[in-house]
């Protein structure tokens, strides 16, 4: 019997979804361990296995850092590479809490980051490819640069994922972070500009009384200049 041939049109009619989109649901943890902007993304497979990956908003990616080394010796006694699992049940696996460190990342600019599990479960494996190719962490965070594979306790995977942020919640969190950063920066600049203004005023005047009057007259130009400065500052918002 001749099998019907698939038509390309049929396939591309539906929007193409990547392997990750097809089979994995993302959950996010922002500001992991209270560290600002250190965000991770946990990909949960339909079979409930979880993959810990870097979120695009993490400084390693967002700040364009180059990874020099990934070290799995997380404490004096614990090295994630020593993890040995036996059988289907992954007996002997290192047990992870949300706060368990998976690895320490060192960048070319000597900054260091620790990446944490974010979910509870058995450690199946860490990505050993990161030893020889640490750059994969930032170049291919959602595929070859994954951090670790974690197997939550039977029946608990969904619970663990529910404690993380959904895609939408993550997006909202990023937006909030952006606005906060903007308003923080604006406030900082305002304070700076104001204090500078006060400095200049106190240094340029001798007659306090005249100053006040003069202030309003003499500084005909200056306020304008200062206002212009403020505006400029407004536009130079730091990206978050």
């Amino acid at each position, binding site marked *: 019997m001749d099998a019907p041939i698939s038509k390309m049109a049929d*396939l591309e009619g539906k929007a193409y979804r990547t392997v990750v989109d097809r089979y994995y649901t993302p959950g996010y943890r922002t500001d992991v361990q209270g560290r600002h902007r250190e965000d991770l993304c946990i990909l949960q*497979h339909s079979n*409930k296995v979880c993959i810990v990956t870097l979120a695009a908003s993490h400084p390693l990616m967002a700040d364009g850092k180059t990874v020099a080394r990934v070290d799995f010796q997380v404490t004096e006694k614990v090295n994630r590479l020593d993890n040995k699992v036996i059988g289907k049940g992954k007996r002997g696996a290192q047990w992870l809490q949300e706060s368990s460190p998976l690895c320490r990342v060192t960048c070319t600019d000597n900054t260091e980051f620790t990446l944490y599990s974010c979910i509870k479960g058995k450690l199946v494996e860490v990505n050993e490819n990161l030893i020889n190719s640490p750059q994969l962490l930032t170049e291919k965070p959602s595929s070859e640069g994954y951090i670790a594979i974690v197997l939550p306790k039977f029946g608990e995977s969904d619970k663990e994922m529910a404690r993380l942020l959904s895609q939408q919640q993550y997006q909202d969190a990023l937006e909030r972070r952006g606005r906060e950063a903007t308003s923080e920066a604006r406030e900082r600049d305002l304070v700076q500009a104001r204090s500078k203004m006060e400095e200049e005023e106190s240094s340029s005047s001798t007659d306090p009384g005249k100053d006040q009057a003069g202030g309003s007259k003499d500084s005909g130009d200056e306020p304008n200049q200062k206002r212009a400065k403020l505006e400029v500052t407004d536009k130079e918002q730091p990206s978050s």
Partner: protein
Amino acid sequence: MLAPARSLREAGCCPCCLLRFLGEKDCHIYQKSAEELQTVAHILCNQPQGNADSATGDNKCVNTDDIPCIACLGILQHGCSEEFLDRIQSKMEEECYKSQLFSLSLMTPIQLLVREHAVMLFLRERFSDLYTGQSIDKVTSMKDVYKWRCGPRLKDKLNMEYHHQVESPFLIQLMFEHKETETECSFLISACPKVFPTNSRKRKRDSEQTVLNRTSVTRAISSLSESKFMSLVRCPPEKVDTMCRCQELTCYHEAVFVAGRYNKYSRTLSQTPWVVDGERRGETSVSELICTRIKAMFMAQEYRFSSAGREDVDVRTLGRGRPFLVELIQPHISDVPPDKMKLLQQEINSGTTDIAIRDLQVVSREESGKLKVGETEKTKSYSALVRVEKPIQPDDLKFLEEITDLTLAQKTPIRVIHRRPLASRDRVIHNMSGEYIDSQHFRLHLKTQAGTYIKEFVHGDFGRTQPSLSTLMHMDTDILELDVESVDVDWPKTIDE
């Protein structure tokens, strides 16, 4: 022979048991009718052939078929009657058992071991010159006599072949019980402490039923001296009022194996019933579409489906298809000729467009082992629809043809890691070629070693399959569709062209 025969008759033995204890080994004698056997017994006892029911005559020496025998408790009497054999016949008809051959199996109550031994000791004491040194083995076995008497007669009733002592895949098992004498072995427990250790923990756990079995009772009896035994058991054993009853009549048919090859044309059909969290996913499966009708044709209790490898729900199987095997448990019908198999195949094929089968045939148990050989040793060919990240030209695919016998290291794919041990497996891709479709798609053809994960080879499975098509082409590649083009196994035998 006269004296022992008389004594046995007096004691209450039926003609068959009488002959057995006299050492008669000729099966033809036992195959005589009940009346004829009575006559034989009369003659042996040197009795005139009188009316069996003469109340005035030697009542002591008369044993009709209505009085249960002390040695066989009626198994060789009522158990061999026409009435009983008719019962067996109707059971066969009721359950539609059809087989070419049958064999019989008897399970007799264990107290018969005690009783037979008692009769033996009785004879040894009374007629020492004839019976000393004679072990119980000299006595013709009750089971043999039963099979001689009933085998040929059942053969005609059931219209099946029967040969004494010949094994057949179809077994009729008769389980006899005799409630009246059920406790006759209990004395052995206390009489033979060595055989039945009085470890109280064990005693409390095991009921008398489990402790007293054929082996332990045999051991216990042989551990007792003749005098000790005779002090505990009346020799010859007591007469009884009831006949043995056939408590259970069960039929066993060895599994029958059916093989074939299947094609799968659906991308939404699982191979076996798919259940997640107690809920059924999908209406049916490959195994159900194939096996339901086969099970019905053979009237089997159960079936077990296996195949030379498996494909995912969304993968088609083309070409000559994948070999499969169906084990039919407890089939009532075992003999299905090739033309009926052909009809069965057509029926299955016309019932659905999702699958198609070919070469459907009955195979032997030995042959069925060839299926698993196919799974692990042979090669498979695939065709995959690949989507590439960066635009390609036809020339970009030429390099694929130059690769032969490429060894991959495949870690357990993430999609199965929840139920398989973590390991790395080496698998070989024997050859490949690429068929250009457009700048973003091409069809990859490949022939691989059995057990290779194709999807993971294409998309790389998070870099856990090395090398992968992604690494070979230096770009992200994804698999949109997969088809199995051939499963290179030469089994089962080709029937359809």
